[in-house]
């Protein structure tokens, strides 16, 4: 029934074409599931290294509201946010660029009834599904290591998906401006400092005024604040602002990406 409706209705009314792209990616990765699964290990290695090793050197941390937590419990939510960022960026930059420029996948897809917006929603949905699986596994590891101290942690997974959404949208939009693989150095140039300095390894209060302000406007910082609040249970209304920031970034990215894809491929 649904298929008949999809075929009879005129194209613009047929929303949700992105699911075909999700199905396509699913079929593709069924054959290389080892690569897929192994993506989960990297953040866990970081968590173990810093949570077991460096934590013994640091001792415990006192948060801004006066509570004291173990260093591992401080770093773990930041690792969760960073891995959500990394996964989304990888899927939405390298993979998209390859499909766009070399595999010419989108040229063939746009020859079907699918539109650029379907490309954007489909690829972003795929990145989010994949990221959600990794994040869920990571949260389970945190639980097993005793690094979760609040029921608010139930929101850690949706928050990770939101971080993924923000970076997948932004990454995809930026990818449409890339000229060659060399340009991906700029992606590294943005990602690595965020990973190292966005209050991931120590509190943002460590920085002097102007630098602190610079850190606070990065999207990863927004994500780290969200995740840390949920896993430690220090929740307040201001978190909504961080969530809105991420949602807006992702939506704007997807809009730019679909506009650019249309311009590049449907000339």
């Amino acid at each position, binding site marked *: 029934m649904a298929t008949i409706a999809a075929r009879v209705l005129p194209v613009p009314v047929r929303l949700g074409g992105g699911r075909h792209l999700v199905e396509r990616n699913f079929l593709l990765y069924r054959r*290389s599931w*080892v*690569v897929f699964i*192994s*993506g989960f*290990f*990297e953040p866990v*290695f*970081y968590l*173990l*290294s*810093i949570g*077991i*090793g*460096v934590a*013994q*050197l*640091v*001792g415990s*941390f006192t948060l801004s509201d006066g509570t004291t937590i173990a260093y591992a419990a401080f770093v773990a939510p930041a690792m969760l946010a960073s891995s959500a960022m990394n996964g989304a960026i990888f899927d939405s930059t390298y993979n998209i660029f390859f499909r766009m420029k070399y595999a010419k996948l989108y040229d063939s897809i746009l020859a079907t009834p699918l539109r650029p917006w379907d490309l954007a929603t489909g690829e972003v949905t795929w990145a989010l599904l994949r990221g959600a699986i990794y994040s869920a596994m990571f949260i389970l590891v945190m639980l097993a290591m005793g690094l979760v101290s609040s029921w608010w942690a139930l929101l850690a997974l949706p928050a990770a998906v939101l971080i993924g959404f923000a970076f997948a949208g932004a990454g995809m939009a930026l990818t449409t401006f890339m000229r060659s693989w*060399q340009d991906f*150095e700029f992606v*590294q*140039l943005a990602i*690595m*400092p965020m990973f*190292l*300095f966005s209050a991931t*390894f*120590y509190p943002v209060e*460590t920085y002097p005024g102007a630098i602190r302000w610079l850190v606070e406007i990065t999207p990863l910082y927004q994500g780290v604040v969200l995740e840390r609040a949920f896993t430690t249970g220090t929740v307040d209304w201001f978190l909504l602002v961080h969530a809105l920031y991420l949602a807006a970034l992702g939506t704007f990215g997807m809009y730019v990406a679909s506009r650019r894809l249309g311009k590049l491929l449907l000339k």
Partner: protein
Amino acid sequence: MALAVENGRRMFDYWLTVYKRTWKGTMITSFLLPMLYLAAMGIGLGSFVDSNGTGALGGVSYLQFIAPGLLASTALQIAVGEATYPVMSGLKWQKFYHSMIATPLRPADVVYGQLGFIAFRVLSSCAVFLVIIALFGGLDSPLGVLGLPVALLVGMAVASPIAAFATTLENDSGFAMVFRFGVVPAFLFSGAFFPVSQLPNWIEWLAYVSPLWHAVDLSRGLSLGTVNPWLALGNLVYLLTWFLVGTWLAVRGFTRRLIG
């Protein structure tokens, strides 16, 4: 022997010509990334470690503790990078190795030239990084300069077996595994960021197997002036063994892949 050196030199010349066109792209991964790690971990996190007492680190600041470790890790990462995709490209994608052995060059010369270029990359990048470390105040003693030859050695100890491994692959998905289960855990658990004695016993033993631990141990001993000559000799022999066996395997792999 003289022929091998002469042929290897010609191969190296080829790589330098290529590098003259591509060096800009390597700046970020070679210098900026380790420098950012040095700043974030050494200075940022270091202030918390140091305020917690430096007893566990043998009385030096956290920056001075991780600097030799980061130098060795940087060498490892550059070497692995140069021994994976470029080798695959020469064998499979661009096939420039095939054109090389159509000249009087033999597969062994191709290997020596390739390894020579990796040595050049590791040495030049690590020399600059060492200067940066010194400017940050990360060197505890002038002997820390000896971390440079150690960095070169660990680079070669991993580059040669990985180049050999690359000759056995049909596509690059094997490299993802090398990075995920080799390079990243080595980086995180080889004592660069904390003493490996803090690890659970079985992981501690895994760390001793990793060539990176031997390089970190050696260059930290030199930099902090706590080096034990017998242990240092053991580190050196272990790294040299990896390099020599790796080179032998690489020559065999290249020969099999290029001539059959």
